[in-house]
């Protein structure tokens, strides 16, 4: 069966490529969507938090062991480094919020947005000053031999990205929907003033949101690094695309972030393969999707439209 003049096995490979790319967007989008859900503002620095978390994990991992050797020690070292990266990211997320966003919480919308862009630029350039601009290899702790079926193949790391994305989405959803803290988060998101009156410490809830979002970014970053290496600009474009994914799914909606990410990954891959958009213009796809979604269904695919009130 040849669809669009492309042999079936090649098509399957493209599907796998698109899915893994999409899963990467989803992983990052989860963090964006959390912060946006609560504060209604784009945390431009999310991609940089991801990058710095990944670097901290990378440095600890290679300090503890030589990953190319393998063995159970490597896996323990990896787990420790992952945890470390999550903690560093969480601290970083909270600090950034306190310094650059909190003073502007009551300011008009343009202000925190510009401040966030500023933070993102500062962090990215600091990282390239401190760590250099060259990519660094991040070895997968387990056996990463590709699994072939027919002519197509997938690596264990790619499967890991898909699985972790799914686990993160489900647990995050359970947390927000079922737990007390999750309830407090939702209340804060609805109306900060009323939430405060109800005895919710709004500042702590916002910090918690940033901490969780940033810790998730570190996990995403490390998974991505094992696929595409560690470098100072790793969070930039991926972060932007992830934001678009979050908007496509319905920003503030956790399932939406996952769906939006996968959809965007598939659209980018098949836009190039089937529609024949030149490879160099593949980023155009994501931004066009953003504009179309915002015009047609601004609240995203998974949220009901709501008119903006005065």
């Amino acid at each position, binding site marked *: 069966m040849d669809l669009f003049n492309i042999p079936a096995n090649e098509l399957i490979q493209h599907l796998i490529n698109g899915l893994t790319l999409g899963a990467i967007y989803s992983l990052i989008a989860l963090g964006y969507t959390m912060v946006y859900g609560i504060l209604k503002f784009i945390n431009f620095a999310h991609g940089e938090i991801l990058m710095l978390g990944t670097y901290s994990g990378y440095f600890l991992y290679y300090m503890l062991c030589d990953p190319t050797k393998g063995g159970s020690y490597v896996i323990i070292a990896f787990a420790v480094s992952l945890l470390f990266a999550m903690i560093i990211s969480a601290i970083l997320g909270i600090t950034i919020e306190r310094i650059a966003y909190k003073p502007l919480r009551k300011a008009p919308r343009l202000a925190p947005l510009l401040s966030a862009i500023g933070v993102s630029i500062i962090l990215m350039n*600091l990282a390239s*000053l401190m760590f250099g601009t060259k990519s660094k290899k991040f070895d997968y702790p387990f056996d990463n031999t590709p699994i072939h079926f027919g002519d197509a193949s997938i690596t264990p790391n790619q499967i890991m990205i898909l699985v972790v994305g799914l686990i993160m989405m489900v647990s995050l959803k359970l947390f927000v929907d079922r737990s007390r803290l999750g309830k407090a988060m939702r209340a804060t998101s609805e109306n900060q003033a009323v939430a405060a009156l109800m005895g919710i410490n709004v500042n702590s809830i916002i910090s918690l949101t940033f901490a969780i979002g940033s810790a998730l970014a570190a996990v995403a970053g490390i998974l991505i690094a094992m696929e595409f290496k560690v470098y100072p600009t790793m969070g930039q474009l991926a972060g932007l695309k992830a934001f*678009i994914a979050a908007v496509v799914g319905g920003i503030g909606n956790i399932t939406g972030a996952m769906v939006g990410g996968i959809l965007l990954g598939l659209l980018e891959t098949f836009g190039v393969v089937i529609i024949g958009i030149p490879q160099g213009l593949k980023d155009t796809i994501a931004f066009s999707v953003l504009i179309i979604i915002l015009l047609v269904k601004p609240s995203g695919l998974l949220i009901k439209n709501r008119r903006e009130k005065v």
Partner: protein
Amino acid sequence: MLDFILLIVIYIIIYSISSLGLNLIVGYTGMLSLCQAAFMGIGAYSTAVLMTAGHMDFWLALLSSGAIAALCGILIGIPTLRLRGDYLAIATLGFGEIVKNVILNWDSVTKGPMGINGIPGPSLFGYTFTSMEKLPWLFLLLFFLAATYMLIRVMIRSRVGRALEAIREDEIAASAMGINIAKYKVGVFTTGAFCGGLAGSFFAAYSQSVAPLTFDFMMSIMILCMVVLGGLGNSFATVIGTVLIVIASELPRLLGISHIIPAQMNQILFGFILVFMMIYRPQGIIGRIKLNYGKMMKDEILHMER
């Protein structure tokens, strides 16, 4: 030495034309646009292509470049101006990336990654401007800066300015007063893009070369910093902001230490300007000129829609 100072002044003027345009969009109307560099890129490449491959006269190419950039401003403006503030920022950022990638990939016209070299200098009454003779350039550019400045001044002091003010302060109320918001927003975007296109055209003709990666996101941020540093919604402040930023960028070279000051320092500086100004002095170093009506409150300066 003087030549190099003149060079800095020339860059200041070129960037001022562009930042004045951006100030119209961000400062006066309150829309965050992150693609001013893309409009400059469109202008620069239009001039480069029209003058080298099309053998067009500079003055015609200059106008065409402005017009093409303005047209792109309309194209991006119409669909995106219905977007809320932060979405608009992302959409314009995306537009900037797309312009860069189109320039990079459209080899038959833009020569792709190589850029275009050997752009001839403009000629006027038989005199040909070259980058070696800086004073004639200076006066030529100064004339265009004055024209841009006056154009925006006239615009802001008219009905249009008051309409923009109303839109920035409260879109819904403005709409209720019978202001056609879409028309004004697209109009502002187009004018801003036109200014960017002109600046880009001069950039290309003065440097006699264009390269695809020049007009990237960081350049948009630099222009945004010029506007924010000076003070949003104040043309004079924008020019001052531009002077400060260009001097800060070229100072290491002037002092002969460009090779030890990391390139990243400049961008870190821009980042700090954005954060610091937003938190401590959102009205910019100069602040906003009081217009003849309305009382300004510090918080309202950046008010968009809340």
